Structures are given as C-alpha cells and as structure tokens.
C-alpha cells in the first residue's frame, strides 16, 4: 500500500510544506549562486521546476531537510558536490532513440552531407555516448564515416569516460536492435558488438573518428565550424534565455545551411532564435541554419 511504502518525495518534504514557495525559490537561487561562485559550475539559468526536483532528490539522499542545509553541505564537502553534479547532469539516453529521427537523418540529411569533401559533426550533450555510436554506425553504412569527424561533448566528465569505453548493458540490446531496424539499419545489429560478461562491447572502429571532450554549453564557446550539430534533450533543462544563448552559439558554429537537430519535443517556435533556423524535417526537429543572423 502507498502508506507502507512512502515514496521519494513524501517524508522529508512534509517539513517544508508550510514554507512559502517564495522562500524556497530564494534558497534554490542562493544554492545555485554558491555552487557557481565556489565550484564554477553555472546552473543558474536551468529550468526551475526540474532543477528543483533534482536538488531535492539530492537533499533527501544526503538526509537534509532544506535547500539551505544542502547548501551548507555542498559548500563544505566537495564530495557532496560531486554527487550533486551527477544528479544535475542527468545521463538518461539510448541507442537510436526515436528511430524515425535517425531514419530522417539517413534519408534526408545524408544526401546533403555526401556533397562535402570532409564532414564535421558536433554532438553536444552526448551523455554516455549511445547516440554517438548510433550516428557512427549510420555514417559507416552510408559510406561517409571515413571522411567524418565527430566531436562529442558533454558537461560531465564521468559520462564521457563511460562513452569512451563503448560498453553498454547487454540487457538493452533487444530494445536497441528494434530501434536500429526501425531507423533503417542495413546490417544485423549484433555485428556491431561482442557480448561479454560485463556488457556489450561495441566495435572500436566506430570510435576511430570520434573525439570526446568536456564542454559546457553555458560557459564555453565555439571551437570549429560544423555541418551538423546534434543537441537532443539537453536544452529542455535550460530556461528560455539560456536556450536562446545556446542557439546563438550553434548558429555561429554552423556552416551555411548546416543542420541542427533537436529532441523530438523541443521547438524554436516563438523564440528569439526562430528566424535563425529554417525547418528542414519539421516533425523530426531538424533545422538548417538560415543565412542572416
């Protein structure tokens, strides 16, 4: 019964119930400010509702009953900051997530990429790399991989290490196989990995032309000119202002008519950035850079 198993947000939250939501907001803002000033990580423009949830989850795990108490701990205990960092950069991802998106890449974007002698891709917020491996497979099958360089970046160094290993849970392979087929995969998915006791190890040649590095979309600038930028389900965690700033960054990092791919439920509608991009495959949220700034 629900009573016997009080779930995540019950217990300790009760202590906060009478507190004004305004006070809570102040506490959250002070905590984020403190993290920025002391550790240099800037989460101040992240979307409030979801960052508050994550901060609260960390507070509960640490056994403290308010955001102020969490702040005290974070400031004096760097290992607490490490744990919070993991919470704040959620790493949920999968291979060929949204198969119809990868199918659209294959059918509609690849023909354009083919015309370039050398292809540069930026995979921003790549998390543990599942999408990067997916893209590498796709480009291999289309004969483009050899002349492609993929820059795969994420805020979180821990997940980048996972990505570099290229080992993913065996239990996911069934789901990924179905996704791969729906995404127009040309081979048998199992050719790409060898099953080991510790997971599915993906063919290292897929990573030959991938450069993993840490990059913070909030504070770091552009580092090259790209023909394709993928940034899926990352900016949903940002507020509109920060989204506009990052979209500016993408705009200035794209070659003329370069492609920008967002997550399935992200949109530029009614934002400052809307005029900077032209819908290319609207339902899959693939855009092209518009010429004028």
């Amino acid at each position, binding site marked *: *019964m629900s009573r016997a198993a009080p779930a995540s*947000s019950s217990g300790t939250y009760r202590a906060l119930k009478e507190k004004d*939501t305004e006070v809570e907001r102040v506490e959250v803002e002070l905590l984020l400010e403190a993290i920025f000033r002391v550790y240099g990580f800037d989460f101040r423009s992240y979307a409030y*509702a979801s960052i508050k949830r994550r901060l609260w989850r960390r507070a509960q795990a640490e056994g403290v009953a308010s955001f102020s108490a969490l702040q005290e701990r974070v400031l004096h205990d760097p290992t607490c900051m490490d744990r919070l960092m993991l919470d704040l950069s*959620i790493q949920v991802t999968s291979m060929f997530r949204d198969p119809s998106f990868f199918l659209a890449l294959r059918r509609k974007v690849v023909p354009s990429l083919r015309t370039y002698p050398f292809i540069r891709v930026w995979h921003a917020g790549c998390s543990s790399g599942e999408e990067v491996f997916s893209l590498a497979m796709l480009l291999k099958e289309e004969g483009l991989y050899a002349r492609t360089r993929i820059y795969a970046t994420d805020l979180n160094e821990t997940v980048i290490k996972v990505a570099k290993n290229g080992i993913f849970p065996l239990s996911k392979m069934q789901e990924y196989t179905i996704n791969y087929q729906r995404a127009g995969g040309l081979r048998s998915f199992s050719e790409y990995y060898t099953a080991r006791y510790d997971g599915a190890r993906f063919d290292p040649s897929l990573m030959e032309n991938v450069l993993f590095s840490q990059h913070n979309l909030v504070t770091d600038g552009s580092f090259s000119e790209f023909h394709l930028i993928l940034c899926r389900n990352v900016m949903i965690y940002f507020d509109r202002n920060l989204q506009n700033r990052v979209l500016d960054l993408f705009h200035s990092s794209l070659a003329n008519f370069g492609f920008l791919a967002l997550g399935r439920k992200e949109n530029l509608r009614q934002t400052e950035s809307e005029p900077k991009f032209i819908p290319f495959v609207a339902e899959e949220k693939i855009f092209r850079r518009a010429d004028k700034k």
Partner: protein
Amino acid sequence: MGFQHELIVVGTSWGGLRALEVLLSTLPADFDRPIAVVQHRRPDSDDTLARVLQRHTKMRVREAEDKEPIVPGRVYIAPADYHLLVDDQSVALSTDPPVRFSRPSIDVLFESAADAFRHRLIGIVLTGRNHDGAIGLSRIKQRGGLTIVQDPASAESPEMPAGAIERACVDRVLALDRIGPFLGQLRQR
C-alpha cells in the same frame, strides 16, 4: 468570474483513455481553463492519444512541447517517455529517470504544478492500477489547491483513485461523468 483556478492537472493510467474522453466531453462547451494531462502509456507511443481526445472537445489538444506557454483553451498531453512539469507560465519536459516506474509520472506533474500554482490549481486523479498521483495530490492539497478523485466505484481500475483518497486529503470524490459538470459549476460561482 470568481474562478480562482488557473490550471487543471489530470493523472490517469489503466482505463485512462476512456475516462479522459468522458471528462473532456462532459466539460461545458466553452470551457477554457488550461488542462495538463499525464496518461501512462508505452514509451514508444505516438500522438494518437492527443488526436483521439481532440474529437471530444473544442479545446486544442496537443502533446506538450518544451517551454510552451500555458494559455487558456488548451490541453497539454505529456509526451510518451518524458516527464511533464509546469512552471509559472509554461510547461517543461524532462527525461529524468522514471519515478516509481513511470515516465511520464503523475506525481512529477502534480508536485511541480502545486508549487507553481498553489491555490490556483485543481488536481484530478482518475482510473488506474497503481498509486502514482497520490503523493502529488497531497502536495496540491498542502499548497491550497482543490483536489478531486474519481469515485473508485465508477473507475475501470479503482486502485489509483483509492490510493489517492487514502493518502491525500481529497476535497471531492465524484463519479466520472460528474467531474466535468462540477468544473463547469465552479466557473460560474
């Protein structure tokens, strides 16, 4: 007008499609308070749910997109495999891990809405086979919102409404076909 409630949040699971059809079709024809809905479903579902529900109301029914403003006359459906949250003026999506096996999670929507809208919120729990929504509904109550639960006797799966009644302080327990008219009356007061 005297209708202090500016947002309605609805959560449902097993049997939810039919229940939502009834709820929407029994609202007054000119009803215009925004409604945010979490219906549990498979992670690879498409937008069929929104299209089916659209047949039952003049309000505009769509799967929510990130940072869409919350405006009158719209129904926002949580997309499959995303959590739906609300801020003061807009909806927000997240791909955080499932909460108690659910993504979207009713509790996540309800808790965020309770914090943002406080007494200006109505929370409704409909049919379902688990206990998602009970904690969220009690948060809505704590924050001064109005809480409504479908009468378990009229629910295809009574567990979720029953769990909500047990846990949250519920203002009204109503048969499914009474919820729409009740919301209509509130508006006239």
